[in-house]
C-alpha cells in the first residue's frame, strides 16, 4: 500500500519533476498543474494527471492558491507537495490544505509564519539558544558604547536605524576610532534620514554562507544531515554549492546541527527545512530558516544516500523519520540558469540542441528538453548539475568534466561562470567567502584561437551548404526542396575522412 494515493505537485520546472520521480518510485500517483506557457513542460508530461490552471504569469497560475487547491480536490489528492518558491512558504495555504483534508508536505501554517517574520524568528532563535550576530537591538548611547563594542568583539558595525541599502554603515576596527566614528555616524544619520539613532552590531568578516538540512516528523523527532556551503553567490543568488564545508570542524558541525534541530523543535516543525547561518572564523550566527525543500538539497542526498523527498512524504504520512546514516565523500551542485554569462541578464529562446553529461558520480536534475521554450514568466533556473566524489578534489574534477560535457544550444547559460569559479584558486584552495564571484570575471582564453577558427568554419560550412542547395535547386529546376540538397552536402562532409 502506498503511503498516499495521489499527490498534487504544486510547482513547475525541475523541482516538480523531482517530486514526481520520487512519488512514482513510491507507487504514488501524481497530478501536475500547469500554466498556458507550460503545456509542453516535462512535469506535465511525466505526471499521471495534469490540471490546467490557465494564464502564464505566476499570479494567474502557480501562485493562485484557490486554483491549485481546487485542482487538488478535483483530482481527489490526499497530499500536496509545494516544492520551493510559489506557495511553499505561504502559511495561509498550508492551513487551507489542512482544512481541506489535503496533507501539506511541509510545516504547519504557524511554523511557516513564525519563521517568515524576521523579528519573530530572531526571538525564537534566542529562546532556543541559537547564536545570533552579536549586537544591541536598541539605540546605543555614547556612555555604553565602549563596553558594548568590546562585548560583541571587533570589528563592529555602526548602522543607522533608519538606513537601508548599505547607507549609513560604518565599520570600526578597534576601540581607538570608536567614539569618533560613532559621533560621525549619528551626525550622518541625522542629516540623511532625519533620525540619529544608531545600532551596534558585530561586523562579520569573510562571511561564509553555511546551512544545515533538517527533517522533522510528527512525533517530535528532528534529525539533521550536516551542512551545505553556499558562498558562491552573485547578488545573493547561489550558483555553486558544496558539502561538506571545508572549514567546519566535526565539533562545530555538531553544534550547528544541534542548534538547527533545537530551533525546529521550538516551533513544532514538521518536514524538511534548512537553517541558514553566517560562518566566520570559527563562529556561526543564525540568519534565517527556510521552511521548505531547497534547490541545493541533492548534494545532501548524495552524501547521505537519502532521498529527502521520500522522507518528506514519509513523515507527512505520519511515519517516523529515519536516522541519517554516515555521510560519504564530497558533493557539489552547479545551478543551470538561462542567463548571459557576461552580464547575468536572462536569456530567452528555444533549446535547439541538448547534450547531457553522464558517467560515474554525475546527476542531472533538470526540466530541460530539446524544444523547450525559455519564457520570461518564471525563474531562469533550468536545472542543476550535481556530482559526487570520494573527496573534494575528485568532486571538483568531476564537476569540471561534467560541465564540459553538458551542452545547451539556443539559450545562454551561467555555466561558464560556474566553471571558472571551480577552476579559481579561492575555490580549489577552499579559502573563499561570499565575495568569491566578484574576483572572477574574465573568460578562459585558452581556446580563443580554436573558437575563432570554429566560428569562421561554421560560417564557411553553412555557406557551402547553401551553395550546394542552390546548385541542386537550379539543376532540378527548382522542384526539389533544399533540405535534400543540404543532406547530400552534409553527407559529403560526414564522410570527409573516410
Amino acid at each position: 500500500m502506498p503511503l498516499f494515493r495521489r499527490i498534487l505537485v504544486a510547482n513547475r520546472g525541475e523541482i516538480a519533476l523531482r517530486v514526481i520521480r520520487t512519488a512514482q518510485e513510491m507507487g504514488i500517483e501524481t497530478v501536475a498543474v500547469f500554466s498556458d506557457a507550460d503545456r509542453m513542460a516535462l512535469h506535465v508530461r511525466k505526471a499521471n494527471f495534469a490540471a490546467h490552471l490557465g494564464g502564464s504569469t505566476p499570479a494567474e497560475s502557480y501562485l493562485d492558491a484557490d486554483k491549485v487547491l481546487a485542482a487538488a480536490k478535483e483530482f481527489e489528492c490526499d497530499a500536496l507537495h509545494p516544492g520551493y518558491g510559489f506557495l511553499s512558504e505561504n502559511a495561509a495555504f498550508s492551513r487551507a490544505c489542512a482544512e481541506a483534508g489535503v496533507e501539506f508536505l511541509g510545516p504547519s501554517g504557524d511554523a511557516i509564519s513564525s519563521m517568515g517574520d524576521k523579528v519573530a524568528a530572531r526571538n525564537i532563535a534566542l529562546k532556543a539558544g541559537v547564536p545570533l550576530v552579536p549586537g544591541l537591538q536598541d539605540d546605543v548611547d555614547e556612555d555604553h558604547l565602549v563596553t558594548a563594542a568590546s562585548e560583541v568583539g571587533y570589528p563592529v558595525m555602526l548602522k543607522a536605524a533608519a538606513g537601508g541599502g548599505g547607507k549609513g554603515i560604518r565599520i570600526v576596527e578597534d576601540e581607538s576610532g570608536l567614539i569618533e566614528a560613532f559621533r560621525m555616524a549619528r551626525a550622518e544619520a541625522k542629516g540623511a534620514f532625519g533620525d540619529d539613532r544608531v545600532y551596534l552590531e558585530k561586523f562579520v568578516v569573510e562571511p561564509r554562507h553555511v546551512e544545515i538540512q533538517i527533517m522533522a516528523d510528527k512525533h517530535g523527532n528532528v534529525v539533521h544531515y550536516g551542512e551545505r556551503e553556499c558562498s558562491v553567490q552573485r547578488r545573493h543568488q547561489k550558483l555553486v554549492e558544496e558539502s561538506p564545508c571545508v572549514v567546519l570542524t566535526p565539533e562545530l558541525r555538531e553544534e550547528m546541527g544541534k542548534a538547527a534541530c533545537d530551533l525546529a523543535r521550538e516551533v513544532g516543525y514538521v518536514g524538511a527545512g534548512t537553517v541558514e547561518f553566517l560562518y566566520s572564523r570559527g563562529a556561526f550566527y543564525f540568519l534565517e530558516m527556510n521552511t521548505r525543500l531547497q534547490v541545493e538539497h541533492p548534494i545532501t542526498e548524495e552524501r547521505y544516500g537519502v532521498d529527502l523527498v521520500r522522507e518528506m512524504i514519509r513523515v507527512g504520512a505520519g511515519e517516523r523519520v529515519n536516522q541519517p546514516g554516515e555521510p560519504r565523500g564530497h558533493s557539489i551542485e552547479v545551478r543551470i540558469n538561462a542567463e548571459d554569462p557576461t552580464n547575468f541578464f536572462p536569456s530567452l529562446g528555444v533549446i535547439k540542441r541538448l547534450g547531457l553529461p553522464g558517467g560515474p558520480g554525475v546527476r542531472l536534475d533538470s526540466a530541460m528538453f530539446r524544444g523547450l521554450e525559455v519564457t520570461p514568466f518564471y525563474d531562469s533556473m533550468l536545472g542543476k548539475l550535481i556530482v559526487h566524489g570520494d573527496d573534494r578534489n575528485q568532486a571538483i574534477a568531476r564537476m569540471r568534466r561534467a560541465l564540459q560535457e553538458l551542452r545547451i544550444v539556443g539559450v545562454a547559460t551561467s555555466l561558464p561562470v560556474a566553471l571558472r569559479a571551480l577552476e579559481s584558486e579561492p575555490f580549489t584552495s577552499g579559502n573563499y567567502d561570499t565575495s568569491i564571484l566578484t574576483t572572477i570575471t574574465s573568460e578562459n582564453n585558452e581556446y580563443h584561437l580554436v573558437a575563432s577558427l570554429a566560428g569562421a568554419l561554421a560560417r564557411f560550412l553553412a555557406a557551402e551548404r547553401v551553395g550546394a542547395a542552390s546548385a541542386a535547386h537550379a539543376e532540378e529546376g527548382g522542384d526539389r526542396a533544399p533540405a535534400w540538397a543540404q543532406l547530400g552536402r552534409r553527407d559529403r562532409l560526414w564522410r570527409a575522412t573516410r
Partner: protein
Amino acid sequence: MKYEAKLGDKVRVFEFKWDDELLIATSGDHVAALDVSLVGDGEALSLLVDGQSFDIVTDVQGQDVTVQVRGERYEVHVVDERERAAAEVAGNKASGKRELRAAMPGIVVDVKVAVGDVVEEGQTLVVLEAMKMQNPLAAEGPGKVTKVAVAAGEAVAAGALLAEIE
C-alpha cells in the same frame, strides 16, 4: 573566400579550401589540415587537427556565431569578404533612421507612442519589464515615429526591434 573572425579585441582572418577529404585552413602564416565532421543534425562539429581532438558546438545567427568549447562559450563575430566590403560602403552613407531595441529580454508593459507621433529627445517610447524592474526606454534624439514593432503584453528577446524614429 576569406572570413574575418572577431573574438574580444582580436580579429583573425581564415581561408578554407577542400583538399580531397581534408579541409585546408590558412590564417596568416599558419596552415592547418583539418579533419572535419559534422555530427548529426548540427549536434557537434568534430575537429581533428594535428592529432588533437576538439568537440565543438556552433550556433550561427547571421554574422554572430556562438561557439562552445570544453565548457566555455565564446561569441565570435564573423564577416566574409563580401560582407566586409558592403559594410564599408554602407558606413559612408549617413542614415537618419534611429532604432530603439531591447537591451535585455523582457515583457513590454506599455507603448507610449504611435506611428506618426513627433517625439523629443529623452521622451519615453516604451516601458519594458525585465528582471522584475520596469525600465522606461527613451528616444535618443528628436524625430517622427515611423514604426512601432511591439504591443503591450508582448515578450521580447534581447536586441529585438521595438520602434523606429526618423
